[in-house]
């Protein structure tokens, strides 16, 4: 983001649209979950917390370490066999990551002394420490993580700044314009669209503008059910702190432990409970974005307005190219009194999709409804921890017998929908009834709460499992698309087929793994999420091969009437 020159947008102070301060709840400040020095808590070359990871323990079983998650500290006895069978890993063939990169391995910072001088005078926190810079040099695409494990970055930010307020951001942007330096905004660092990668040939000084210190909820407006927050607050902190006051935003993308509010805006994020709460664009009442030419914001906080194009819509999805999102006013809701998981087993994926379409048509989708294909169901099954009590496995046994023997379902064909209901207990009960009734028309049988919950746990954990794959020559990635209903089935089948075929054509010797789930439903279509992994043992350039395969899968998606992305962002694809 390079800019010089005069502001054209006049800085607009929020005009008081009749707000009364007395109904606003102000929030005390609290330290964010992720510290300023991210390296203290987070892995340097993989996903998530340092203490949480999949390992192969001394009994050669897969175990998840730490105690943060439900799965933490548990062994998953069937996961190893699943990995061997499905992607052809071998425990004898391991590849370890390179040792942690030091200052010597990292390009020396380019320094714009005048800029640094003015920054110091403005008393804005900044650092050119190599680890600080490295941690803000990448997102989590396969390509970036692979560089961390095996390679070197040729260009990383030269400086990290931590503004603590909207005004400090204005200052930083002004100085950058004045001294002709580059700013890359950085939120939670979970980008999967290469948006925070530094341009290789950029010779000007690159500053990573880390918004993490702008993490306050400035006020909550109970009358209007809105909350005004700084954009650097991360998802889990936002929900936790709103929860203390009895509210929630309901925006829960799978990355919500780490991703930030500003990042959601910049990438047009989508949360799994969007059926009740809406996607980010539905949640936003007001935005402030600092651009090189001034601050853009609306002059009121109203539910809707008609005065030309909605300026929110070019801030949304701008992925840091147009400015820095600093403050956001969001809709909030009271925390629901009842939350309940559920699941439906379908004889096959096709019937599952038909059922989801019907549910969408009748507009009775619960907060979340997802349909996993058979491969993903099997995967989820392999992740079952050893702790299931005697009783629950007994129940499982009966259920399995019922489904396969009495209902004639084929375990290698079934698809499972996971559900999350929210509301009052009466509402939940009536929603459940309606959904299960519709499901019955499509051959679906209720599959129990536990299966549902495990499905949602899977998405949090799956990000970690990629790092285990790396250790055994497996590269894995996810991508997603938005597609009209009439195309969903064809798209899922064709894209998976294309992935397998491209692997075969490229001489990959082991079976490849491709799976998908319908993860969001809309009136006119659905979001489909793919996981794809293959064992690259024997290939010299796995990332390049992976990228070629992914590119052809994206071509296939487009040919099948899908979009380039539903919520990951795609400016750089």
């Amino acid at each position, binding site marked *: 983001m390079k800019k010089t020159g005069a502001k054209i947008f006049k800085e607009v102070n929020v005009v008081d649209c009749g707000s009364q301060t007395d109904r606003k709840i102000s929030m005390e400040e609290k330290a964010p979950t992720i510290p300023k020095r991210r390296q203290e808590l987070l892995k340097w070359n993989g996903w998530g917390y340092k203490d949480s990871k999949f390992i192969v323990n001394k009994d050669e079983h897969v175990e998840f370490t730490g105690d943060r998650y439900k799965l933490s500290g548990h062994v998953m006895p069937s996961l190893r066999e699943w990995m061997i069978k499905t992607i052809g890993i071998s425990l004898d063939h391991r590849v370890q990551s390179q040792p942690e990169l030091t200052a010597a391995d990292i390009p020396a910072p380019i320094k714009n002394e005048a800029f640094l001088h003015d920054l110091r005078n403005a008393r804005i926190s900044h650092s050119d420490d190599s680890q600080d810079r490295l941690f803000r040099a990448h997102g989590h695409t396969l390509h970036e993580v692979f560089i961390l494990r095996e390679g070197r970055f040729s260009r990383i930010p030269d400086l990290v700044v931590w503004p603590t307020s909207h005004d400090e951001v204005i200052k930083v942007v002004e100085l950058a314009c004045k001294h002709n330096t580059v700013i890359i905004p950085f939120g939670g660092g979970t980008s999967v669209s290469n948006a925070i990668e530094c341009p290789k040939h950029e010779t000007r000084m690159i500053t990573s503008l880390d918004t993490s210190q702008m993490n306050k909820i400035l006020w909550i407006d109970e009358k209007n059910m809105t909350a005004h927050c700084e954009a650097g607050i991360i998802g889990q902190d936002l929900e936790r702190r709103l929860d203390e006051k009895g509210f929630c935003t309901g925006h829960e993308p799978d990355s919500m432990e780490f991703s930030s509010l500003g990042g959601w805006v910049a990438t047009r994020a989508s949360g799994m409970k969007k059926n009740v709460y809406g996607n980010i664009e539905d949640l936003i009442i007001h935005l402030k974005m600092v651009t090189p030419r001034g601050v853009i914001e609306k002059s009121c906080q109203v539910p809707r307005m008609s005065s030309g194009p909605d300026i929110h819509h070019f801030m949304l999805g701008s992925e840091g190219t147009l400015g820095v999102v600093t403050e956001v006013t969001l809709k909030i809701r009271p925390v629901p009194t009842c939350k309940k998981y559920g699941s439906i087993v379908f004889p096959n994926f*096709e019937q599952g999709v038909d059922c989801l379409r019907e549910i969408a048509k009748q507009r009775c989708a619960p907060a979340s409804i997802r349909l996993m294909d058979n491969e993903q169901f099997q995967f989820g099954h392999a992740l079952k921890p050893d702790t299931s009590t005697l009783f629950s496995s007994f129940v499982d046994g009966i259920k399995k017998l019922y489904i396969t023997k009495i209902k004639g379902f084929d375990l290698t064909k079934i698809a499972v929908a996971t559900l999350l209901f929210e509301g009052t207990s009466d509402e939940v009960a009536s929603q459940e009834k309606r959904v299960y009734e519709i499901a019955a028309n499509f051959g679906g049988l209720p599959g129990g709460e536990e299966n549902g919950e495990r499905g949602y746990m899977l998405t949090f954990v799956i990000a970690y499992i990629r790092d285990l794959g790396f250790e055994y020559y497996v590269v894995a990635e996810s991508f997603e698309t938005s597609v*009209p209903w*009439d*195309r969903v089935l*064809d*798209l899922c*089948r*064709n894209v998976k*087929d*294309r992935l397998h*075929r491209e692997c075969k054509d490229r001489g990959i010797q082991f079976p490849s793994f491709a799976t998908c789930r319908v993860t969001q439903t809309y009136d006119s279509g659905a979001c489909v999420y793919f996981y794809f992994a293959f064992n690259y043992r024997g290939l010299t350039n796995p990332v390049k091969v992976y990228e070629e395969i992914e590119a052809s899968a994206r071509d296939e998606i*487009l*040919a*099948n*009437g*899908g979009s380039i992305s539903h919520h990951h962002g795609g400016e750089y694809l």
Partner: protein
Amino acid sequence: MESQSRNVWIKEGDPSKLGALYKDGYEDILEERRHTSDFRWCTRSRNVQFYQYRHPRNPKQIKDSVLSSDRVQYAIEQVIQESGTTPEETENQVHSILDEMAHNLNLSSVRCLAYVLTKIIKRLYRRIYVNEEGIDTVRTLIKEYPVLLMPSHRSYTDFLVMSYLFYHYDLPLPVIAAAMDFMGMKFVGTLLRNCGAFFIRRSFGSDKLYWAVFTEYVQTQMCNGDAPVEFYVEGTRSRTSKSLSPKIGMLKASLEPYFKAHCPDIMVIPITVSYDRILEENLYTYELLGVPKPKESTSGLLKARSILSEDFGNIHICLAPPISIRTFSEGKINRHIHSLSPRYIASLTKDEEVLLKDLAFVVILTQQKHAVISPWALIASVLMQKTNGVQFEELVKDVEWLKRQASNCGAYVDWPGNESPEHVIRTRLLFHSNKLTISDEDLVELKQISPPSHVDNKTSKDTIISTAAMHVMTSLYRNQLLHVFVRIAMVTIPVNSCLQETLSINSLFEQYTFLETILSREFIFQPGKTREDFNKVLVLLQHAGGLVIDEERNIKIKQSVNKYTTFMSIMFKPFLLGYWVVCQYLLSLAGGNLDARPLARKAKQMRIETQQLILGLLSEGIIKHYEILSLDLIGNALDSLVDMGVISREKRIQDIYFVPQCAKVSRIAAKIESMTEVPATHITDFSTFIIRTVTAKL
């Protein structure tokens, strides 16, 4: 010590003692049938592998899904709006279209037919050879992707033999697009339906309902992979043994699902079915001469059972390597164009149609490449040039020579390596003894062919017709060879007729292009590949045909005219002569006045009149090539002239009328004259001929 010798592994050392069960990658599937019980074979359990994403359906369910499909429902609504029929009527129309169209493939009927068929086939044919590699490929592919079978079409037998083959190898039985001709036959129509035939009208123009039902019926089976879909890209049986220009309607319908991303890919398998002797040789011959084919009827079929006592030799079936439509269209087609409207409404784009036309040509050229050329085709080619007979010894020499040339061009000649050439040729002569005589002095001569039973007595007594029949029937077999040499001949003809000492490559190419254009209805040329083909032929001719090109890239004529180039040119001479006569006929319509506007005529009338003219020329002895009488050749010439804009088409109320443009016609005629010898007869003479023949008819 002997047990250590490698020879202990060899069961039979003498190749001549080996059976002919296997050869050159081909396997005979009849052999086994001659040794084991047919009944058990027909009732055995079949372990068939289907397309991986297939949902099993029966024929009734397929019909139901067509009825309830978006496409058909949409068409019904449109028709109701446009023509004001009631929903009930329209729905009934759809039902009757579907009932007329749909197959009723069921295994029990197939088993019954298989039982009868195997008995018949064993009597008619000696062996049915199939390339095993092709079968192996199909076996794996059928599980992975929907499969489209595209066999060549030379005989009704194609249809039966293909299904027989798939039954034999435990492959899913194909459903076959057939023309309506059969449908009227009692029992047979039903029987074929039960064995997977579905019936398509030959033309259905703008009938929306029919289009919708047809498209949906084909596509739903394609996408679900209910069965491999089989159809003939040539549209109809080729009566001449030459490949016909592709019809792409059915190809479009069946590949559209790929472009609309209904399925991950579709595999097209070109298949060549080559016959030693064609079952319908007699019928074709007289049909080509203008004696109408008998209507397909069950009684006709029963009458034809006399052929059961005849020997039709071997059939070779070659399944060529599959063509993936994904790979074929890679980088040429952007499929996402179809995401902007519902897939059941939009049709294919121009680019896609062009691509499919290209594919259709590739399929036919692939079929040609994998054709099995019988020694008899070589013999026929030589005999066609020696209509006064030839000594056996000389025949052997010429045939062997021709065999080498064909092999050099990449043709596969079915020539048993363990037999002497004399033996090979003599057995083939005996095998085709219905068409020739061998005198005590070993002179081989073609003989007159008696017409099939339905031909009236008057025609059958006409000697010109019988002689023509003899020529035309032999040409059916010579024609098997023509695709191998046609490009070569298009170079040798200008070379042989060149009056200068040298001929520049450029003007040679110009003449080559002219020949390709005018012969494009007669032979199969891939559009847009003229230059490439030409260059390939030049290289080949320099190596194998004695073509001499000097440093300035000029052909040296004297050195280049030899037995090879002459033989090739003569082989194709009848075509040029025929086209020339057609031109003369057209010119005569304006009485030889190039500026006059000749009377318009219907195409059919033109064909018949030209044929009459040729009859006259033959009886006067002005021309000697009887095969020109073939209506196929005359029709091709007229169509080609239409393509070239030399004849314009006029639509008058219902029928299409042809109007030749004399100046252009005369230019074409002059060009042909410059390339081949033509009778020194004037156009005015032709007019009188026509008058004479017409009056004779009166």
